[in-house]
């Protein structure tokens, strides 16, 4: 990738513009030294020696005076502090190629188009087209927005300046806008010298949130900083430099100020989402390439197991697995290490909690209930692991993952989620006749889903459609006494919610009674081994002739 080269005729002027202060200071120092030597040479040796003898102490005193002045200035005029230590990243520090950008093929294509526009700016202006001023990279964290921005800068062969939006913010009013001005001045100077410049503002929402206006002026600094950004991007500015602003944010579109998103500012929006199966495979292959791994390792299986994982998550999994393998004294990373790394990241670290045999048995049946129900009734997820080793606050866990990405939840999926959540309770009640408070999190989950189905998604069977949460006092911005929903309507909606829960409960009860042998077997296995892996779980279902893969092949 070619390094950005300044335009020849502009080179010296740009260098002067960028380093004006440094050049003036250096030149002044040079002159002072030359004149000092000249002055000293013209003195007679006695006076010269006397002056030279005093020089160290003069320098020391000057240094002390300067230090005292700086200290007093920083203490006395707090704004001095605000100007200290804010640095930007220079283009020369960026070296990210297109080939390094993996797991966001669509975003890459859009970004490439923007790069092409940057390069063809002159041609575009000739035709009369409007140049791209801003590019907004939106997406969940860890999906490579910053990485993509760097690749854009490298690919376009132009300087890259980066700064986090949070660095603009200061307790002093006006500092943020001053920093924005300085940053844009610098970008314009670079654009003058190199033809264009990419200005990357990370975490844009820190200054890009919708401006608030209140009589107390609490958000004044953020507003001022944002106003300056708006002006610099497309306002009354005398210079028309080829500065392309790339903003990155995790915030949803509604969070950012509308003025910032209008054409002429961030004209283009690129969604950098989580990678799909194919992209995850590429990501695993890429990051595994950086460590020594078992050659028999199935990258496809890893990709399937890591649905909804971001590139940063995948990188983290590989790093964690390398640590695990090293700790175990292995030379290469194996599938087991990767699996353990995923669990550790997803479920947290194991910690031994002393349980009585009875509590342990209840936990084993609780988790087995989840497992069996999930296996038989869930349409999208696979069980990867079941465990009765405590992690975090949970005494046990059933780790499941969707087989593929779903961007919406169907009614069946939501019902299955509810059934799986209730299965722990059902198993406890079925086997022991009593239940524990270990079902609290499950019930919260089940209730939230059932409620949302009825109140928000129109998935009830009593004919109510629409999002009723909008009419409640709290959501509608009124107090709860001023609710738009009648008590009767609320009652009916709640009854429908309860009906869904009851139906799910019955179905799970039926299932667990029917599959009691399998339930007992899993509880026994868990009590014995504490943890069961995907293969072991699958083997037990096969043993009982209830494997989902065999039944699906039979049915097909």
């Amino acid at each position: 990738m070619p390094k950005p080269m300044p335009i020849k005729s502009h080179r010296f002027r740009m260098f002067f513009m960028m380093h004006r202060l440094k050049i003036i200071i250096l030149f002044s120092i040079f002159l002072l030294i030359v004149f000092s030597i000249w002055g000293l040479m013209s003195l007679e040796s006695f006076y010269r020696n006397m002056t030279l003898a005093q020089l160290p102490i003069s320098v020391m005193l000057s240094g002390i005076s300067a230090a005292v002045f700086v200290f007093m200035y920083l203490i006395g005029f707090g704004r001095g502090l605000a100007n200290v230590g804010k640095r930007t990243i220079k283009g020369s520090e960026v070296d990210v190629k297109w080939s390094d950008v993996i797991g966001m093929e669509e975003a890459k294509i859009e970004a490439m188009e923007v790069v092409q526009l940057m390069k063809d700016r002159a041609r575009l202006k000739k035709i009369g087209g409007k140049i791209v001023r801003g590019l907004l990279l939106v997406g969940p964290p860890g999906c490579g927005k910053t990485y993509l921005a760097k690749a854009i800068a490298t690919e376009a062969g132009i300087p890259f300046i980066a700064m986090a939006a949070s660095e603009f913010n200061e307790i002093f009013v006006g500092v943020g806008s001053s920093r924005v001005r300085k940053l844009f001045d610098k970008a314009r100077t670079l654009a003058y010298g190199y033809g264009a410049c990419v200005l990357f503002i990370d975490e844009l929402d820190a200054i890009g949130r919708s401006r608030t206006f209140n009589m107390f002026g609490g958000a004044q600094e953020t507003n001022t900083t944002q106003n300056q950004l708006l002006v610099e991007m497309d306002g009354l500015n005398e210079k028309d430099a080829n500065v392309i602003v790339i903003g990155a944010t995790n915030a949803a579109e509604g969070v950012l100020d509308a003025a910032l998103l209008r054409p002429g500012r961030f004209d283009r929006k690129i969604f950098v989402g989580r990678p799909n199966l194919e992209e995850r495979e590429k990501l695993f292959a890429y990051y595994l390439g950086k460590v020594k791994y078992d050659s028999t390792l199935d990258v496809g299986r890893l990709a399937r197991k890591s649905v909804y994982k971001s590139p940063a998550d995948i990188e983290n999994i590989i790093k964690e697995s390398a640590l695990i393998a090293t700790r175990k004294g292995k030379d290469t990373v194996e599938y087991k290490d990767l699996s353990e790394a995923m669990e550790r990241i997803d479920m947290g670290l194991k910690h031994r909690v002393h349980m009585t045999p009875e509590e342990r048995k209840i936990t084993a049946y609780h988790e087995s209930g989840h497992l069996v129900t999930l296996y038989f009734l869930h349409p999208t997820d696979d069980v990867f692991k079941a465990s009765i080793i405590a992690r975090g606050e949970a005494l046990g866990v059933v780790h499941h993952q969707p087989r593929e990405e779903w961007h919406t939840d169907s009614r069946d999926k939501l019902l299955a989620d509810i059934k799986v959540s209730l299965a722990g309770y059902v198993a406890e009640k079925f086997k022991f006749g009593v239940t524990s408070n270990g079902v609290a999190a499950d019930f919260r989950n089940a209730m939230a889903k059932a409620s949302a189905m009825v109140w928000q998604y129109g998935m009830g069977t009593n004919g109510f459609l629409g999002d009723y949460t909008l009419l409640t006092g709290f959501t509608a911005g009124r107090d709860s006494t001023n609710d738009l929903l009648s008590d009767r309507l609320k009652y009916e909606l709640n009854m429908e919610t309860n009906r869904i829960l009851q139906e799910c409960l019955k179905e799970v009860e039926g299932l667990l009674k029917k599959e009691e042998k399998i339930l007992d077997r899993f509880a026994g296995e868990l009590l014995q081994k504490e943890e069961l892996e995907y293969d072991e779980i699958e083997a037990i279902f096969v043993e009982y002739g209830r494997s989902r893969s065999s039944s699906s092949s039979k049915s097909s």
Partner: protein
Amino acid sequence: MLGVSNGVKRFVLLMGCMLFLAGCSPTYPKHQLIASLTELCKKEYGVDVSVQIAGKTLGVMVPLEKLLDSTLKLSPDVGDKLDGVILATSRVVLSTDHPLDFYVVVAQDKRIPGIELRLTRYIQDIRRLNYGDLSRTEYTKRMLLDFGIGLGVFSGKEEPFHLEEVRMEQFLATQIARRIKTAFEEESQLKEGFEIKTVHGKFLPHQEAADWGGKEKRFGRFVITLEARERLMGLLETLGSEDEERLLGASLEGILDVLQGYHFSAFDSVEIKLPFLDHSFILGRDVLELYRRKKIGLAQLLSPNNFNLPSYDAELLLKK
């Protein structure tokens, strides 16, 4: 830093070396000293001077058309020229590598041979003044200024003149005498009691001083002679012990100021002669040091039998 940091470092290093080297060479090297000073006086002050070096003393002879006016006082236009020559001499002696201790500037009136104005300075005093290590008042006290006929530093009238080296001991002896005289003239208490006509100071090297005190001396003795006015002789003979104490005290003060001021210890004793009282006090160096450190007082000095001196410094002699 733009890749210039190495360049800047080299530049600063070079400048530092130049600064260091700039301080190395003397402006008036030893072999050009006389020529440099002669040229400097001519070029900058328009005065023709003759320069000689004797040992560690530099002598400058300034022949002037009109040193004295008709009232036998210094001509007003002489001042500037002499100041110029003195300044030039100071500059040269400070910035040379020739080992010099003193300089003497003598202005002679061409019309009245033998009339001289002579200034003697210890070069280290000029340095200390520049370093701020000496007050202007003390500096002035340390300078010897004489006006008279045939003062003797330059012997012979022939050209080029012959310069006699100034010895430190003699310079100090003269300065002690001047200071004592000034003290008697300026301090009201002393002025009321005594009228001192002249004070002479000289240093007798150890060969000459060997017979005094009965011991062989290594260095020599300062001899300070206080002469009173003749008309007061009668009064002076009636002096009591208190007056004697004051006289001795004032003299010792002048002696100690000078010797301590120059950290001079190359002497064995100090003799204070009071011819008008026919008294002579000889104080050994150690006794003088005890007095300076206030271990003994004037009364003890005047009555040697009354104090117990350590055996090593039993050189206190009181002669009448």
